[in-house]
């Protein structure tokens, strides 16, 4: 058990996947010579060569589609898109092809493709590099949407995604790359949510970069005698309904913390599911802490103010408890 960063865990997962299966290769902008825009793939080019650590031109749609084709053709590609904002240039391929081909072909063809991208704010990268659109992607049937928040998931989810016969999107929150931790479990499931902190008074439901802020909020609440359960959704599609409902049935209160914008958000979906499945168990309306409805601003204080932060989560939890 060695300490490593989230970035190193993702990198190690790539190495192990590349070594384990010749069909696996990584492609994307600057994944090779540059070492990856967030340095995830640093050193891989030297180890695996330019065929398998494949630099692409600035052609998000072209190389994402090429990933789909290569997956159809028998390979196990990992496509890296620099950030979720740029994935919009590949949205046609992701939605109209990756997510539909299995269905449109009546089950004849499947697309075992993994697409990874950075998501989230916090680095003052302003309004074209900071958004959290994983909730959008979770809207799309035919895709699986993963949001690793821990070292174990940063490592294990890649292997699980590669083993999946269908397209899987992995969203890596940019604030997590430098986070250190111990790699304990090498195998991750990509079907269930995880209880990251058991508690009995309220359920705090979150994922990705917000997990750590939520855990911090839970400690603050604990100091004030409120015992919060923290659920890490881990997988945004398909959602682990059972885990959400089981926890809410126990605590009777819930707040959803989501780095996406509030309107039409994943938090809205989770809240609706609680309403549908646990309405009679609830002692309070479901609360939400989301990003303010503004393109992410550049100045630090405004960026911080736009995002879910621990004090706001604490306040939302207290207000649910009354």
């Amino acid at each position, binding site marked *: 058990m060695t300490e490593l960063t989230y970035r190193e865990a993702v990198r190690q997962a790539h190495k192990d996947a590349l070594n384990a299966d010749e069909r696996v290769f990584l492609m994307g902008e600057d994944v090779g010579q540059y070492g990856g825009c967030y340095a995830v793939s640093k050193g891989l080019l030297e180890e695996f060569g330019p065929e398998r650590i494949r630099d692409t031109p600035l052609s998000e749609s*072209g190389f994402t589609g090429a990933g789909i*084709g290569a*997956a159809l*053709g028998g390979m196990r590609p990992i496509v890296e898109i620099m950030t979720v904002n740029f994935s919009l240039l590949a949205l046609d391929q992701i939605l109209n092809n990756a997510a539909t081909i*299995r269905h449109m072909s009546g089950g004849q*063809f499947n697309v075992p493709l993994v697409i990874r991208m950075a998501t989230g704010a916090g680095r003052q990268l302003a309004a074209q590099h900071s958004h959290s659109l994983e909730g959008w992607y979770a809207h799309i049937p035919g895709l699986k949407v993963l949001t690793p928040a821990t070292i174990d998931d940063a490592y294990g989810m890649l292997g699980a995604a590669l083993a999946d016969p269908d397209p899987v999107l992995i969203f890596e929150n940019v604030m997590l790359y430098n986070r250190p931790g111990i790699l304990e479990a090498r195998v991750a499931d990509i079907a269930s949510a995880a209880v990251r902190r058991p508690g009995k008074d309220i359920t705090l439901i979150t994922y990705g970069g917000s997990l750590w802020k939520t855990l911090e909020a839970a400690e603050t609440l604990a100091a004030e005698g409120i015992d919060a359960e923290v659920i890490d959704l881990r997988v945004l599609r398909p959602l682990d309904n059972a885990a959400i409902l089981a926890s809410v049935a126990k605590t009777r209160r819930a707040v959803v913390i989501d780095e996406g914008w509030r309107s039409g958000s994943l938090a809205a979906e989770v809240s609706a599911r609680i309403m549908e499945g646990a309405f009679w168990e609830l002692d309070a309306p479901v609360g939400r802490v989301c990003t303010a409805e503004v393109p992410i601003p550049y100045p630090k204080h405004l960026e911080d103010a736009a995002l879910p932060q621990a004090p706001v989560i604490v306040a939302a939890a207290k207000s649910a408890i009354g």
Partner: protein
Amino acid sequence: MTTEKTNTKLHLDRSLALERLKAMIRIRRFEEKCAELYTQEKIRGFLHLYVGEEAIAAGVMPALDAEDAVVATYREHGHALVRGVPMNAVMAEMYGKAEGCSRGRGGSMHLFHEPTRFYGGNAIVGGGLPIAVGLALADKMLESKRVTACFFGEGAAAEGEFHESLNLAALWKLPVLFICENNLYAMGTALARSESETDIHAKAASYQIQSESVDGMNVVDVESAARRAVAAIRAGQGPYFLEYRTYRFRAHSMFDAQLYRDAQEIKEWEAKGPIVRFQDWAEAANLIHPDDVEKIEADVASEIAAAAAFAEAGTWEPVADLTRDVITGGKQ
């Protein structure tokens, strides 16, 4: 569909002439039947007919091997038929029946067929090109000799995905055969109204891709060019681009009033249509005889009647299976 490995040269004898003529007539009559079935509301949704352009599918497919892959557009009935997707399965798909080649989930625009490596039926203009690039990338990485043939209209040349794909294919020297079916109109938009450079094959050349512009109304020229191109690709020369000049005789889809072109223009093109032209030529050259054509027509008519009956007798997938095949082995 031919499967011989060394099919680079075209020897135009009687049997080949009959085969090509039959391929074209088969598409033409099939689609005429589809149009009729459309008015009877047996076939619904969008229906894009290939009438006038048959020489391209009929000429390109024989240049491919069974292991090669095909990526096509929403105007792909002809491609599917010549590639070897059974007519019954194509017709049943048009009806949306469970016996269709995509189990009814795709319809006219999304014909898929794993046994012939027919990867759709893509109804996003330009959307198939990156997939073809990826299929070819897989082949290259797997050191296979397979070729991926990608069909699209000239309208796709305006899309970013066209340029991204040509660049990738050329940069990585991938075994892709790009086939532009230039029928002069993208729906109602004439080429000159949408492109600053109307010479499509010149665009490909600018990406350092070997490219040719070919008469797409002449099935012999189509096939010769395709064999040349496939041979070059298999020899490891990277992608190849063929622009076939052609014309669509029918409306873009069944919803098109064709306000953008006049009837005279269509008439002129019809007079030099791929079927009349090849048939007249082959008869004059004594390769085929009028009773050959009668036999082809009769065979095709009975095949189409059987396909329509097959589709008619087909079954509707139960609604309980609605969310089948969204993800592998389960429902989402």
